[in-house]
């Protein structure tokens, strides 16, 4: 995150201080009045109210820092996605060099992935079927999961306008090289991500949330 990208505003609804840390972020929630705010160039518009995200057992919070491949990042936003058999969170990670990634947190599995140009048109959700293959930068990927997802909750700032209740799709690819890919069909279109899983300890997280009931334990 480049400090020069940080912009401070006042919440258009209640006037409380409101900050965007990334140039790319266009959506956030006011931490005081819970209004959802969209940024158009320099103007802010309050578009609704977000219910308080119920406390859960995630070890992360907005502001948690970590490092990936030698670069530090902090978690500026979060979306919670729910599907037939469970839920998981995607954290919007802002890197010190201004790049952005997504940290996926699912049942103790952590993957850092980045929006990538797949080099071809992203197929429509109905056409992306399990078993389909594609090659990207020398690695062969195969779709091994396709699920309907609901956008359940958000927190902090995001590079797209979050639509609560939006029903999209998430398509997972695996490869033989330890890389994983994903297509997320969301409210603002579809994106292709490439990433890898790492154990919790490899990210050197700082400023983690204190987990209720686990105050005495360490990661």
């Amino acid at each position, binding site marked *: 995150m480049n400090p020069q990208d940080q912009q401070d505003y006042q919440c258009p609804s209640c006037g409380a201080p409101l900050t965007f840390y990334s140039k790319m972020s266009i959506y956030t929630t006011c931490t005081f009045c819970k209004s959802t705010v969209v940024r158009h160039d320099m103007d802010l518009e309050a578009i609704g109210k977000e219910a308080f995200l119920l406390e859960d*057992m*995630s070890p992360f919070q907005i502001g948690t820092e970590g490092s990936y491949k030698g670069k530090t990042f902090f978690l500026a936003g979060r979306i919670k996605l729910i599907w037939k*058999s469970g*839920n998981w969170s995607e954290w919007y990670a802002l890197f010190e060099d201004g790049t952005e990634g997504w940290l996926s947190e699912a049942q103790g599995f952590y993957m850092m992935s980045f929006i990538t140009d797949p080099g071809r048109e992203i197929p429509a959700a109905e056409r992306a079927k399990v078993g389909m293959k594609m090659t990207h930068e020398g690695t062969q990927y195969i779709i091994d999961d396709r699920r309907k997802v609901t956008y359940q909750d958000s927190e902090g700032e995001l590079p797209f306008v979050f639509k609560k209740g939006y029903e999209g799709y998430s398509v997972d690819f695996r490869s033989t090289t330890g890389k994983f890919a994903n297509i997320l069909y969301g409210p603002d279109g579809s994106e292709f991500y490439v990433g890898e899983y790492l154990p919790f300890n490899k990210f050197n997280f700082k400023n983690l949330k204190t987990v*209720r009931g*686990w105050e005495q334990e360490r990661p």
Partner: protein
Amino acid sequence: MAGNKNDPEQQQVPLGGVKTFECPNCGGTVELRAPGQSMTAGCIHCGSVIDLSDQNFQLVQTMEKAQKVKPIIPFGKRGEIDGITWEMIGFMVRKNPQAGWAWQEYLLFNPWHGYAFLAVSDGHWTFIRSMMDRPTEVGGKVNASVQNILSELADVPGGLINPGAARIVKYQKSSYTLSDKYPARVRYVAGEFFWRVKVGETVRVFDYVDQPNMLTLEKDESGSVWSKGRYMSPKEVKSTFDLKRVPPVKGYAAHQPNPHKQKVKDILPVWLIFLAALIVGQIIFAGMSRDEVVFKDSFVATQKDQLMTKGPFDIPGGTSNVEIGLTATVDNQWTEIEGSLNREGTDQHFGFLIGAEYYHGYTGGENWSEGSQHSSLVVNGVPGGKYFLNLTAHSGYLEKGESAQYRLSIKRDVSVSSNFWLLFLFASIYPIWLIVQRIRFEANRTSYLS
């Protein structure tokens, strides 16, 4: 804002890390230890299954009779396994509906490391973590790219091809062999789970074993999940969770490590080094023995019980052993020499009895033979000095009035192998017993599992 029973926030009373709500079926208190993450709860009072996804606590299933199964590891109990502290939050009973046997699964939770399972079946415990990557199937001589396609498609939900399970899979440089495949049906749930689960749900399970590890594939229409487990001894589980009792162990598990395997492994180098030292020692001693011939004579006896004296001859050097060798030209006959080796000028004498018999013939179209014309014996502790021999000859020849021919030789400081063999045997009793135990365990296990 008066307390509203239907308001989810009002219903939840945080208790440390535990949130609670009322079971929509029986009104009993249901505790949540991983709120926000758990999708399903099973009421510990009535067995009902409750959906947690939208905070409305919708009842998914009620049991006809209130069901209550008491888990061995209590809810909320924490224990450390492989450096990570886990808390028991969910409990499930699953059953193989075809064969009728049931087992228990415990869902363990840690906020930073996610989830793990402890499964127990007939007293055998397995500690399980799920995997993001998957093993590769090891085929026969199938062309690699064809094999890849087959293995990819084998996991397609609904199955474009259903070639049956691979017999061997490879994961992280180890090979695992298919040991069992069976359907698994959920029979009871209590506590909370991070996925939607219902009583009656069935999946197909494939167990692959590389002791003490096991890879398990669970497949149903919506997909397949791989997980890796390791055998955990009842003792380890008991001490991890501080349990008063664990279920008794019955029979054998495919991934159960052979308890004698490690003992054999430990003792093998010690045993082999000892045997090697023994062999080297024997070679050295044999090399050091002089094998000196101190007496050699050929003679003939003509009378029954004929008494003869031989010598005197010198046995040089200090005290050592002495080997008396006899060669007699017996042909379908026996002979025996009763004698004593007497030291001149003293009372010292060493008595011995040496015999030879040799029989041979041609019976039923076959040549046979028995015995030998040569024999020898060893006398220990013979000091150096001047000696003579007193010999009495007995033989079948003499009884018949014929003569008997002998060749007698005496050697000093000979190498003897009897000590060597005694030690060899003695040192091998325990290791061989361990090896037998190890083999018997495997044999019992194989017959139990088939």
